[in-house]
């Protein structure tokens, strides 16, 4: 049981870290604002979700687990709204 939980933690956190890395590379390499936003939001949301998933077996209490999930949901909400706003401003004022 512990081994399975550890395996889940290692796999999920590593996968999350990979998505963060991919998102960062996309942010640095993509040519314009919209594609950079695309890289950043997709990768960060999924990356953070996987890190949270990996940390869930380590929380020790159900409440702490729910707090982690709440953090992820709040980040999803905020980052999607913010990237909509950035994208709209970028479309209105082309560089």
């Amino acid at each position, binding site marked *: 049981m512990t081994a399975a939980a550890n395996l889940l933690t290692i796999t999920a956190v590593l996968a999350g870290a990979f998505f963060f890395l991919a998102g960062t590379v996309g942010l640095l390499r993509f040519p314009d604002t919209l594609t950079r936003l695309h890289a950043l939001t997709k990768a960060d949301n999924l990356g953070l979700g996987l890190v949270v998933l990996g940390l869930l077996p380590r929380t020790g209490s159900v409440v702490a687990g729910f707090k982690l999930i709440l953090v992820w949901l*709040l980040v999803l*909400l*905020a980052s*999607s*709204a913010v990237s*909509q*706003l950035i994208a*709209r401003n970028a479309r209105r004022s082309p560089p």
Partner: protein
Amino acid sequence: MSIATHISLALLLLGLAFWTIVVRDTFSAVAGFIPYGLLLTSAWLALAAIDVALTEAAIGAGLTGALLIAAASRLHKTEIAARAEQRGTITRILAAILATTMTAAIMACILRLPDRAPTLAPTVARHLAQTGVGNPITAVLLSFRAMDTLLEAIVLLVGLIAIWSLAPDRAWGGRPGQAQTEDPKGPLAYLARVLPPIGIVIAIYIFWVGADHPGGKFQGATILAAMWLLVMMSGLSDAPAIDRGWLRFLLIVGPAAFIAVGFLGVVVAGAFLSYPTGFAKLLIVLIEAALLPSLAVTLALLLAGPPRRPGRRA
């Protein structure tokens, strides 16, 4: 955290601080300052100072960052002209010498600190039970050093008065900032409808656990202020005119309650801001509860800026 994490955190902090200073563009400097505050939050977490980390994230990175972004976008028009001004070589050399000497002096002071820094922590820990609160930070802020916290709350109020005094005569008593023309069905309005209920619960939770765990009125008030600002920015509810009675009342209720409890201490316990035995926790919670709305309104209005348009529709 391992030593490698600590070292990379310190290097990142130093690098970002350096970049924030040397970059010429004001907006880029601000854009460097905000992640700097968030990294500093991680540094405080690494030092197990969770209260400080919460405050740094809320006030240092969040609130100050937002203030600086507003300032930078306002300076944008005049910035190119200001950058064209070049000081003479002698002035620049003198400034460099002064700054370097200052840094060297501070470094020398820190290196000469005694190995075991003088600390009052054991004394605080010994007398913690008398205050009735479980979080030593709250005990220090509201019992042992209550005077500092009182002055801090008053300083914020004075800061707000200073901002208001920048108002042009015709707008005095009016509403701060520009009228918002945000799309009422857009993403910002959606966020401003969904987020505040969650934010208010979290703010009150952080305020309430502050007695025994990391948290407290300042962090809670910052979240409340952020929620209110979100509603104002999305255009769902206009910023209030600054001559409203309820607004003025909310601004002063916290410091006024604090001062009243202070004078109560003179009568009952023999010194300003000393709490009568057995009532310490009750009075501390009372002061914090009165400070929460005051701080939230003050912080939100600090960001909203000076009044710029008449409050009542003509």
